[in-house]
């Protein structure tokens, strides 16, 4: 029961992450396809966020290899890169479980910071920009255009000049995704993007993610608890429990996998039924 990955944008091989005596991730291997929305699910404490932190360089894995591949066959060993080089060079962007926006800066400014690296080059590492050279002005204009594009896609245009910290929760989640997209990533990693969203916002999020996959040639890897999102939009699901992979397949396969339901949901029977019901609902919507 494996979902076939033809064109992996990310390959994780034998990933181990140890914190003192705790093995948070245990010999984990999986692939993420360039054209898929891949979901990483599992009960609380299964090590999902740790996997994310390893991929995006915030933790250095104890063992294992994480490879990012671009279409032009360039590949990057992420576990060897500095964290800031992963979005900059390997083009893997991420969002955070507890939203990390630049709260005192406006929506537009947040999106401009997302384009820091190309703008830095355009400003000749500040030396050209400070004298107002035209090359920088043009680059800045383009950057504003890209920011406007993503504000439109996320419905934030009207709030462009408001402080990010002033936005309602759902808009903050969207802004964080828009900001990550401004780095023009090949792979977007989302840590619980639907957490705290109401059903309508969650629906909008689904649309946004599908749009990103289809129109922007960006693979999406997400951690999510909301079955509505997971079953509704993902093409490929990986299930973690206690740092181990216990299942890997299409939503259909996962839904019918008894070991997933047992391990993922614990032992209480009534709970299993409850969630089976929830999964069903998620699939039908």
């Amino acid at each position, binding site marked *: 029961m494996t979902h076939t990955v033809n064109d992996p944008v990310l390959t994780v091989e034998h990933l181990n992450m140890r*914190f003192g005596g705790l093995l948070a991730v245990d010999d984990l291997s999986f692939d993420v396809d360039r054209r898929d929305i891949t979901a990483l699910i599992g009960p609380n404490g299964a090590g999902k*966020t740790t996997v994310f*932190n390893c991929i995006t360089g*915030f*933790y250095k894995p104890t063992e294992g290899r994480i490879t990012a591949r671009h279409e032009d066959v360039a590949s990057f060993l992420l576990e060897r890169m500095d964290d800031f080089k992963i979005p900059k060079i390997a083009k893997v962007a991420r969002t955070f479980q507890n939203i990390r926006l630049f709260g005192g800066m406006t929506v537009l400014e947040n999106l401009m910071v997302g384009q820091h690296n190309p703008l830095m080059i355009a400003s000749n590492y500040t030396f050209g920009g400070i004298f107002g050279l035209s090359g920088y002005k043009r680059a800045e204009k383009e950057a504003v255009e890209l920011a406007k594009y993503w504000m439109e896609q996320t419905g934030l245009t009207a709030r462009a000049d408001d402080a990010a910290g002033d936005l309602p929760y759902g808009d903050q989640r969207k802004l964080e995704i828009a900001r990550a997209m401004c780095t023009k990533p090949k792979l977007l990693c989302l840590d619980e993007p639907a957490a705290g969203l109401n059903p309508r916002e969650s629906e909008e999020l689904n649309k946004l993610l599908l749009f990103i996959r289809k129109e922007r040639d960006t693979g999406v890897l997400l951690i999510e608890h909301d079955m509505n999102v997971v079953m509704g939009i993902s093409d490929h699901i990986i299930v973690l429990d206690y740092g181990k992979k216990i299942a890997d397949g299409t939503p259909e396969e996962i839904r019918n996998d008894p070991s997933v339901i047992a391990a993922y949901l614990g032992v209480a029977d009534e709970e299993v039924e409850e969630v089976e019901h929830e999964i069903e609902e998620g699939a039908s919507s």
Partner: protein
Amino acid sequence: MITVDLGYERTVLYFGGFVSGGSLMEYFLQQLINGITLGSIYGLIAIGYTMVYGIIGMINFAHGDIFMVSSFIALIVITALGLTVSTGLGLTILALILVLVTSMVIASVFGWTTERLAYRPLRGSFRLAPLITAIGISIVLQNYIQITQGARVKPLQPLIENGYTLMTRADGFTVQLSNMQILIITVTIILMTIFSLIIAKTSLGRAQRACEQDRKMASLLGINVDRTISMTFVMGAALAAVAGLMFLLYYGVIDFFIGFVAGVKAFTAAVLGGIGSLPGAMLGGLVIGLIETFWSAYFSIEYKDVAAFSMLAIVLIFLPQGLLGKPEVEKV
């Protein structure tokens, strides 16, 4: 030992302990004794930093100055009692206990008032604000003492003399353990034990540890957070007062600027030991005291503060959790 008179550079010079000629084993041993004595004083001040930082996460910049104020109070009480070296040993010790208690009480009032006036109104506010008020209080205390007690160095004749000669070398160099040093080390050990017991066993200590973990939760569980924080300042100030008296007795000279340098070094000690850890503060104090003494003894006395400050930078960069602190995992 008083050579130049340049603001606080003057006081800095006393910090080196008694450097005498000599070399090799005996000389080393003598420096070790001096270093432990100095380290005890730093350790006592460091506890105040470590407790306050542990509980409200701020550097109480004025803590060094509380130490300074307390040494002035001790000097006033000693003068008022008319203590001299000719007072009998038993009477001297009794009188010193009185001096210690008085200066601990008054220093505690200073510590409590500082917290109440300058830090409590800013609790939960902009993080830089209490740091600025702490610097302000530090300036206020220094200048207050300068105005009320005078800018001149205050000398005190030694009250406790003599000691034990541990070793005598062929060339006449002796390794001395003075009664004063014995007193300082003993008092430090006793007070450290008492305060460790307070933290470990009493309800106040429990409340303090609870506030360190999670202040909001502690207050939900019925702990009076404001009172606990106040008591932390009081305890820190009381220990600083012990250090103030020891410093006065050991070096015999104080002025209004001794708090700044001693404060920075004691903070270094607190960080070195692992901030929030009481035994760590004591250990850090000893290490800083030893480094400083050995640096002055073997290298140069002028640059011994550079040694202590560099130590601070090195520790923070390579061992930010300190010797006995818990490592912090970056939360993403």
